[in-house]
């Protein structure tokens, strides 16, 4: 219950929950069709500025599409990538980390060496290569994030598993005659989970930014799906005519990234004795 007492966790977590609700119910919440173009209402400013029109709370973009509705729908791609990519990276990294940390010896040597080699490859290079090889699209973005970032989880989970394996409760479980998989998944895993949750939250923030960057340069989903990165790219082009087209998705991205980060930070502080140091 220490979690609830940390205002950081409450505020950041609340924002993420809000975002999830917005993404799920986007068609009900969005005031306009995010794809409806109307050149007669192009680059209208947000409400409160001269020439604003009611119905377009955050104004319209260069094609007359409602900025607020596009930001709302854009949260879907961001959150999908955050949960799927970070989740898969976490899954693969943790399984390998658990195996390396618990089995030790040969498995540990192979997996640790693999992680070292992998991490020596700078993320930018790897993502350039991956996107060049597998092409653009949402699945490529997710694959790129998983392929690059599974090592983060593997490293931490391995270390954590090794320290848990030294604990008395593991010795006790062995003495009672539990099988190795039972010890690993029923005894050790639950104790590794807190670290994992904090790490996963931080990774979600990273995934959201990576997706936005790839959308920005046109290497993510096709341009007819609203994404924050895609909106930012459009807004960047017409920043002198309509700054709000850039400002709105940028603010959404900023808030989301900071929220994931603060939540992960807060969770790490409250849940994990290793990171707390």
């Amino acid at each position, binding site marked *: 219950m220490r979690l609830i007492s940390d205002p950081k966790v409450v505020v950041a977590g609340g924002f993420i929950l809000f975002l999830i609700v917005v993404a799920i119910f986007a068609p009900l919440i969005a005031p306009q069709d995010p794809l409806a173009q109307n050149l007669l209402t192009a680059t209208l400013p947000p409400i409160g500025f001269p020439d604003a029109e009611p119905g377009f709370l955050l104004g319209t973009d260069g094609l007359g599409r409602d900025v607020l509705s596009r930001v709302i729908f854009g949260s879907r791609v961001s959150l999908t990538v955050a949960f799927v990519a970070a989740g898969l990276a976490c899954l693969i990294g943790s399984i390998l980390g658990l195996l390396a940390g618990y089995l030790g010896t040969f498995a540990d040597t192979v997996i640790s060496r693999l992680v070292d080699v992998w991490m*020596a*490859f*700078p*993320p*930018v*290079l790897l993502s*350039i*290569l991956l*996107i*060049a*090889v*597998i*092409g653009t699209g949402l699945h490529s973005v997710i694959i790129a994030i998983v392929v690059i970032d599974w090592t983060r989880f593997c490293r931490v989970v391995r270390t954590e598993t090794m320290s848990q394996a030294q604990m008395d409760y593991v010795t006790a479980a062995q003495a009672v005659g539990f099988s190795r998989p039972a010890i690993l998944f029923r005894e050790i895993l639950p104790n590794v989970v807190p670290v994992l949750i904090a790490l996963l939250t931080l990774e979600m*923030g990273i995934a959201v*930014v990576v997706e*936005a*960057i790839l959308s*920005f*340069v*046109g*290497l993510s989903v096709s341009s007819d799906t609203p994404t924050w990165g895609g909106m*930012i790219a459009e807004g*960047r082009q017409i*920043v*002198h005519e309509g*700054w709000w087209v*850039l*400002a709105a998705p*940028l603010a959404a*991205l*900023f808030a989301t*990234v*900071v929220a*994931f*980060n*603060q939540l992960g*930070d807060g969770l790490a502080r409250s849940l994990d004795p290793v990171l707390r140091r």
Partner: protein
Amino acid sequence: MLLAVIANRAAMALVTLAGVAVVVFILLRVVPGDPVAMMISPGASAADIAALKAHYGLDAPLLVQFGIWTKGIVEGDFGTSITLHRHVTSVLADRLPATIELAVMALFVAVTLGGGIAIVGTLLRRTPGEAVIDGLNSVMLAVPDFIWALALVLLFAVALPVLPLTGQIDPALAEGFSTRFYLTESVLTGRFAVAGNILSHMIMPTLALALPLAAVIVRLLKQSLKEAMLQDYVLLARIKGFGELRLVLQEALRNAIGPTLALTGVQFTFLIGGTVIVERIFAYPGIGNLAIDAIINRDFPLIQGLVLLFGLIFILINIGIDLTVAALKPRLRHA
């Protein structure tokens, strides 16, 4: 001893680079996209396509292609860019100086800014001022270069339109240079108006790259400084009557800076990685911006050259970190 360390690192680096070269080569040959299909008009005949493939050596067996490519690299020839129709080596040589100037400038700003804030934070420890710095810094730590860059665009494009949004230099001024190190050359030849113009173009990309690194430096250096301020030698200097600022700068900083230097080196590689997107946002003509074009156009020779160049840069930085760390450890230096 130190020489042995360097020789060992250099040998490892060469092996790594060779490995990267092989991986890149193989990966790019198994991709589904056909570069020739991208460069030829839809109505081209099969003979034209075959001729073009032969021209770029794409019709030879993989092993032969790899042989030609490796031989070229050893001779400093990375092939011809498919989209730019120029030698990859000369394209990279044209673009690299702009990125070097930007990255070094960003590193300098990050260290100055981060170091300065960390020292101020240490002086203000246990006051509301420190809480403000910590609070802001915890948010800054979460904000990547991409977001900074665009926030700066918003600020300077809309609220404060004083800086140029794109490019490296006013095209009218980009004449009479004998190197591509525009900033360095204009400063060295005393053309300060030109240097000023280049700097005005560099402010935003520099800040976007520097601020995330500065935030990391603030956190670690302030932590180390605060720990150092509790040590006996600081107490002794305090008894001698040293002022607080002098205690931090002369006594604590020297002992606290080690971990920060090592971390800054590692983070500098991330900063170099960040040039890819930041150069894109500001249409800055460096290798990062080039890399994105190369991917979008599936320009294989250029992608290969870029990946190897980035790999080489990362390896050189890592060797540089090792040397710096070694230089700071007198025991290792004299051994």
